């Protein structure tokens, strides 16, 4: 169907307001149903047996004792999940990750699963499964993994992207490179060069709701799954492939979601629940424990990054390089590649080169985490940018403004930018009162920029007008950040009806065409655009029906303020017909009134943000307190500004935790030491100030309302902004994230020793 997706400068009546959230009452009263909240008659409890070893050959698994235990209805191993991936390497990695095949690749890797009548029986059954392991040497650190002599995880992993292709296996899965110009020449033109190495530790997305599902799969190949996910269509397709099902016969319903941030874009135990259900011929509920979520879902990469930037005395960057090593757990990822693409995307550079290395280690399979890979690269680059500005005696914001990318800039990852928002966010930062507020003793201020791509993807939306004139919008994108409210606002805007007359729901996989996941900051962009088109299609039907009711040609009818009106000299003089009146007559004018659209939304437009942060450091303990924080970001158009602000604040809050406290701690035995929220400390309200937000609206030319994605960019600058603030407060450059009290104390101690030595 023809449609126009270009920005037109439309004036809004409803979009941009802040109505109450439609899921609010359910969530505050406990009525909202999450992944573990649905039960089925006769359901069993699913539990997973996991490897206690970081790296081990599975010599033998004996499940016979567990199978004989009364109350146990099914036991599965990898033998129950034959390889049906048909040469798809990415899908095979997912299969291997869901259930170890021959080797356990990390502490927590699934090796078997049971379904039993209750949790106690299931736990007892796990203890009766006898797994014989041959322990292998392991490696969990990204730098150790690339050293000669490191234990090699895969005997057939030869670094891709290198010519000639190596003949010796290693833990470097792939090399990738971006950039342009001549960096050596550029460094020769520099008056000042700063070169540093940085490390960031592994963090988890930290969603409060663990992975949970209820699976019911019959021997006839038909099934249902209720699951907490960021993409129920993708879960359906993946599970159908892994289990040899027709996708149409597996109906997946998404629950409310208690956080995902990328971690719920990937299946973990859901295929196991389906396989158990098929074997037991009973519904199986499988809910991960917190320990399992940490050990066996997908955290982000730990990294090691080298950065070198040169500039002239008047503040122009002449050359910039970065070498980025990201671990993806035991499988090939694209995490270093994304880091290499985003590192210098904020800047207008003549000479730039970034090289990424995808490294495998004995840790869980890495998954996306909100603007995946960009925060670590920004930490390293923005730290050096700040240091360089100090060294040439230039204000850090002015230095960035001088070097910022703009329309027409050749980006560091290749293409030339169209209209972009980095300059306006920097100008807004420069003029923000936060930048001029006085600081006290032991306090420091930092700022940093961040970039993320955003994307669109496959989307299907259905809008139905009910007989009483209220409106349903069915989308296939999970509401992770307020999209049901935004879709209702958009439908209300287009149809000219009150927001309260519209209800948006997330439909199951049998009700709509395929939808990609809620990731890539894509939902308000793509489902929003689809809702505009679906509503406009419904409006065409409403006009046709009004024309029938008046017995005039539809060309003589126009739509205005929620009413059909006759238009033109020969249209006649009829009083306007409201949407409600047309809906009430629908049964006799052609039946139900609806508008649909299915499409690929591309052209999401890149996104930029600038953050400002003040910290106070306790030099006695090394503890850091965030005392003021400001997020400035371009939203294109904020459909529901409160939700946009929530995204900005949420990204900043997660970044604060990542910067200061969060860290996977592995023991020498390769086992995770802190798989729980007592020992893995995410920020709580008392750790945070009120995070101030500034929404800039520079319309995206490729969206009818000008929308850009906003969900991810807000986590990109915090690591760097906070590192710059802490470094300024401490008087020593911090190069290792998280900047936990012991690391800050050590940095202060090292600095004192250096000073004493010099004296």
């Amino acid at each position: 169907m023809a449609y126009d997706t270009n920005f037109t400068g439309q004036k809004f009546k409803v979009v941009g307001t802040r109505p109450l959230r439609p899921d609010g009452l359910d969530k505050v009263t406990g009525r909202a149903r999450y992944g573990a909240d649905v039960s089925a008659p006769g359901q069993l409890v699913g539990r997973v047996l996991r490897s206690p070893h970081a790296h081990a050959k599975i010599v033998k698994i004996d499940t016979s004792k567990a199978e004989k235990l009364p109350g146990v209805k099914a036991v599965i191993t990898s033998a129950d999940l034959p390889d049906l991936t048909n040469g798809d390497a990415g899908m095979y990695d997912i299969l291997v990750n869901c259930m170890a095949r021959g080797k356990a690749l990390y502490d927590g890797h699934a090796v078997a699963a049971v379904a039993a009548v209750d949790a106690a029986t299931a736990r007892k059954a796990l203890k009766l499964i006898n797994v014989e392991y041959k322990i292998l040497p392991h490696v969990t650190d990204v730098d150790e993994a690339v050293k000669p002599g490191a234990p090699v995880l895969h005997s057939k992993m030869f670094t891709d992207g290198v010519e000639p292709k190596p003949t010796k296996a290693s833990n470097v899965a792939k090399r990738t490179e971006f950039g342009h110009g001549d960096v050596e020449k550029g460094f020769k033109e520099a008056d000042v060069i700063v070169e540093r190495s940085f490390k960031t530790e592994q963090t988890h997305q930290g969603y409060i709701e663990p992975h949970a599902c209820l699976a019911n799969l019959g021997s006839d190949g038909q099934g249902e799954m209720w699951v907490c996910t960021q993409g129920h269509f993708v879960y359906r397709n993946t599970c159908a492939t892994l289990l040899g099902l027709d996708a149409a016969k597996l109906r997946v319903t998404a629950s409310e979601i208690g956080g995902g941030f990328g971690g719920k874009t990937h299946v973990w135990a859901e295929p196991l629940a389906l396989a158990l259900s098929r074997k037991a011929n009973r519904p199986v509920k499988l809910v991960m424990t917190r320990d399992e979520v940490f050990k066996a879902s997908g955290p982000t990469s730990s990294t090691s990054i080298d950065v070198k930037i040169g500039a002239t005395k008047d503040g122009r960057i002449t050359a910039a390089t970065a070498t980025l090593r990201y671990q993806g757990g035991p499988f090939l990822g694209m995490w270093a590649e994304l880091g290499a693409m985003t590192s210098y995307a904020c800047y207008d550079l003549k000479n730039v080169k970034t090289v990424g290395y995808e490294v495998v280690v004995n840790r869980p399979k890495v998954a996306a985490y909100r603007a995946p890979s960009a925060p670590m690269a920004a930490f390293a680059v923005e730290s050096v940018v700040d240091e360089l500005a100090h060294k040439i005696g230039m204000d850090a914001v002015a230095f960035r403004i001088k070097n910022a990318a703009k329309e027409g800039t050749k980006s560091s990852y290749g293409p030339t930018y169209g209209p972009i928002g980095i300059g306006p966010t920097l100008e807004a930062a420069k003029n923000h009162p936060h930048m001029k507020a006085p600081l006290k003793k032991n306090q420091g201020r930092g700022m940093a920029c961040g970039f993320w791509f955003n994307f669109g993807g496959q989307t299907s939306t259905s809008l139905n007008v009910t007989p009483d004139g209220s409106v349903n919008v069915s989308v296939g994108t999970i509401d992770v950040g307020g999209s049901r409210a935004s879709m209702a606002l958009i439908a209300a805007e287009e149809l000219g009806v009150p927001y309260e007359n519209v209800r948006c729901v997330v439909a199951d996989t049998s009700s709509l065409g395929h939808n990609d996941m809620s990731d890539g900051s894509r939902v308000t962009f793509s489902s929003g655009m689809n809702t505009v088109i679906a509503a406009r299609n419904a409006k065409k039907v409403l006009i046709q029906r009004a024309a029938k009711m008046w017995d005039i040609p539809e060309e003589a009818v126009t739509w205005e303020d929620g009413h059909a009106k006759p238009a033109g000299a020969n249209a006649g003089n009829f009083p306007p017909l409201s949407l409600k009146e047309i809906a009430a007559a629908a049964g006799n004018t052609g039946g139900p009134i609806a508008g649909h659209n299915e499409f690929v939304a591309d052209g999401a437009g890149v996104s930029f943000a600038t953050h400002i942060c003040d910290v106070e450091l306790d030099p006695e303990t090394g503890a850091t307190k965030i005392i003021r924080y400001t997020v400035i970001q371009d939203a294109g158009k904020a459909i529901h500004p409160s939700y946009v602000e929530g995204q900005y604040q949420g990204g900043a809050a997660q970044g604060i935790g990542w910067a200061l406290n969060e860290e996977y701690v592995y023991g020498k035995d390769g086992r995770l030491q802190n798989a729980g929220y007592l020992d893995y400390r995410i920020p709580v309200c008392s750790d945070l100030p009120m995070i101030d937000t500034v929404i800039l609206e520079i319309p995206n030319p490729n969206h009818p309302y000008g929308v850009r994605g906003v969900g991810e960019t807000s986590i990109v600058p915090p690591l760097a902004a906070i590192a710059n603030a802490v470094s300024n407060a401490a008087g020593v450059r911090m190069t290792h994230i998280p900047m936990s009290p012991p690391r800050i104390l050590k940095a202060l101690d090292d600095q004192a020793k250096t000073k004493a030595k010099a004296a």
Partner: protein
Amino acid sequence: MVKVVLWGSLRAAAGGTEAVEVEAGNIRSLFNKLETEYPGLEPHIKRGIAVSINGRIFRDSWDERIPENAEVYLLPRIAGG
């Protein structure tokens, strides 16, 4: 003819060259030509490649027209959170 710039790890699959020239009116025909003329690129295209046309990134819209003298970059198919 369209000049198509390849990112680093694709270059090895296309014989080490940084850019290739093919006759293509849209993304679908671009991929078809690339698979024929540079068979090493086929597995990468199958796994998923994004195409930037004049700065606008397309991941799935293979019908997108490539104008004369357009700036065309092949890029990794970006993941998101």
